[in-house]
């Protein structure tokens, strides 16, 4: 089992969390102007990285807040957890 650090509640057992897919996917501002291929890319295509992956988790059985996690998809090691709207630790901005 994983221990995941909720940005509000601290370290809790994986059983309390739900996985929410890749993080930082921005909804296109004007969907009407997109081609089908672009829309499909936004909806379905994910990076599927081998290594450090930014992903969304929800503390479903705790404070019920969404947040972001950096997890190594090879080792399952969780490297960081940060609040929505924040950039991943160590990123350029």
């Amino acid at each position, binding site marked *: 089992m994983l221990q995941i650090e909720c940005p509000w*509640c*601290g370290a809790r057992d994986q059983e*309390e969390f739900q996985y929410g897919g890749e993080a930082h996917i921005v909804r296109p501002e004007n969907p009407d102007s997109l081609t089908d291929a672009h829309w499909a890319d936004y909806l379905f295509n994910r990076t599927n990285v081998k290594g450090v992956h930014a992903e969304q988790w929800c503390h479903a059985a705790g*404070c*019920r*807040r969404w947040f972001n996690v950096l997890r190594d998809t090879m080792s399952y090691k969780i490297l960081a957890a940060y609040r929505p709207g924040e950039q991943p630790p160590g990123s350029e901005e």
Partner: protein
Amino acid sequence: MSAKHSSLIEIETPVLRPGSDGQTLFWMQEHAFCVHLNLRGDSSSSVFSEAVGAVTGTAPPEHPNTCVSSEHCRLAWLGPDEWLLIGVHEDFGPAPLEERLAPLHHALTALSGGQTILRVGGENWRNVLASACPFDLHPRVFGEGACAQTVIAYTNVLLMPVEDPDRGEALDIVVRRSFADHLARWLMDAAAEDGFEFLSPVGSP
């Protein structure tokens, strides 16, 4: 008006079932019919905190996983903008708070009929719960003034350490009404070896 029933109506109480060596190291008692209100708002706004404080006697706790008590109620942190308000007396209704909060951005939701409190204690209560709860219940990290939402036996719960006036150190488990029977039966099973006593519910319909 139809009669109110305890969530544990199908479990006959009081019941005393000592363990294999005749010991009783776990007890449970429902605190039924408390007033439960879910409150949402911006606690960084002093107007909001003061409005809540004026009615409840205490400002909503800002620190995650803490709760505060006043004469009238308990306020437990549920999220950065969300609290559970448990009224000690039945006449602690939402109306005065609703009136104070009306001009402010907020949400106040009555949950009284939807959830109940199971108070557990006894020498071995931590061990009994630990067999199906992933949360660390050790007194070093979880004592009075703390609260935590987690799961016990696949059921969402809010835990609050308390001092029971008659029986000493105890834990309040706030649970959905529809899961209360499942949880109580699960606790019976988990505590069978240690021996348990289920007392009649506190609170009048």
